[in-house]
């Protein structure tokens, strides 16, 4: 019996080493199964607004930081492109903004992704921790399988062996 192709894989990248592990795993899967690879980075506008409402930021401060977040996003996506190119894999990257889990899930639906790959979810400070919520919400809201790329050294071995 043949194995169904993975089709399209979406990697959710954020500014963490864990999401780069997810990227390396996605590249390995895409190369192995001939899947099309996509990677997105979402600027967490929701959190910027939350910190503005909490008065941590004053008016205008969040705008400066948003520029920095955009630079972070471009840098990480560019790194993912480099990782993919090194293994002969094409990746389509996109910088999005909004509520992280919503953007990731919507993008997966839009491209008809067969799989979303995310990095290991950090231990939450609390269930009120927004970053924790985003990882959890992708798991809950996705309409396709979601894979959490755990075990950095295993993933590195897989990526390096390509």
């Amino acid at each position, binding site marked *: 019996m043949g194995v169904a192709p993975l089709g399209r894989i979406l990697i959710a990248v954020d*500014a963490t080493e864990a999401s780069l592990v997810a990227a390396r795993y996605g590249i390995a899967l895409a190369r192995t199964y001939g899947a099309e690879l996509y990677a997105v980075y979402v600027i967490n506008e929701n959190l910027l607004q939350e910190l503005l409402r909490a008065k941590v930021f004053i008016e205008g401060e969040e705008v400066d930081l948003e520029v920095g977040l955009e630079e972070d996003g471009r840098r990480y996506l560019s790194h993912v492109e480099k990782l993919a190119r090194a293994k002969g894999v094409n990746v389509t990257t996109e910088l999005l903004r909004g509520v992280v889990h919503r953007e990731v899930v919507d993008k997966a639906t839009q491209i008809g992704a067969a799989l979303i790959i995310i990095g290991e979810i950090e231990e939450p400070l609390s269930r009120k921790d927004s970053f924790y919520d985003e990882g959890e919400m992708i798991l809950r809201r996705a309409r396709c399988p979601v894979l959490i790329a755990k075990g950095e050294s295993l993933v590195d071995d897989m990526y390096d062996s390509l």
Partner: protein
Amino acid sequence: MVLANVITEATVKLDVSGVDKWTLIEDLVDLVARCGRASDREALLAAVIEREERGSTGLERGIAIPHARAEGVDGVTGALAVSRDGIDFDSADGGPAHLIFLIVAAPQESTRYLKTLSAITVIGKSESRRSRLISASSPGEVISVLEENDEPSL
């Protein structure tokens, strides 16, 4: 853990009292610089003061988060001053600040900076954590409270 390596035992200052917020900010910047996490102490202090002058970082519930991004900072780093008596920080609710978190970052560390500031606000929402931080008797105890999870994970 979000706060790991941001605030360490060496950058916790307990039993703070009798200082104004500007002096305290300078003390916290000195603490970060002395730990080797900021190469340009003057530039960092200027950035934090400039931000504070634009609007107080004193929030509600006894929390203050003076913050800035500046060249010469090693990643995202910070210091914490604990004051049982409280410091006048021109806070949003008019009350004194008991937990003053200095959070500083290199300009290219925007995401981790945002994440760290968010983590502090999460801690600030927990009355239990706030009171345990304020009554902590050692920097080690402070770090334990900062790094614990107050809810079970998945």
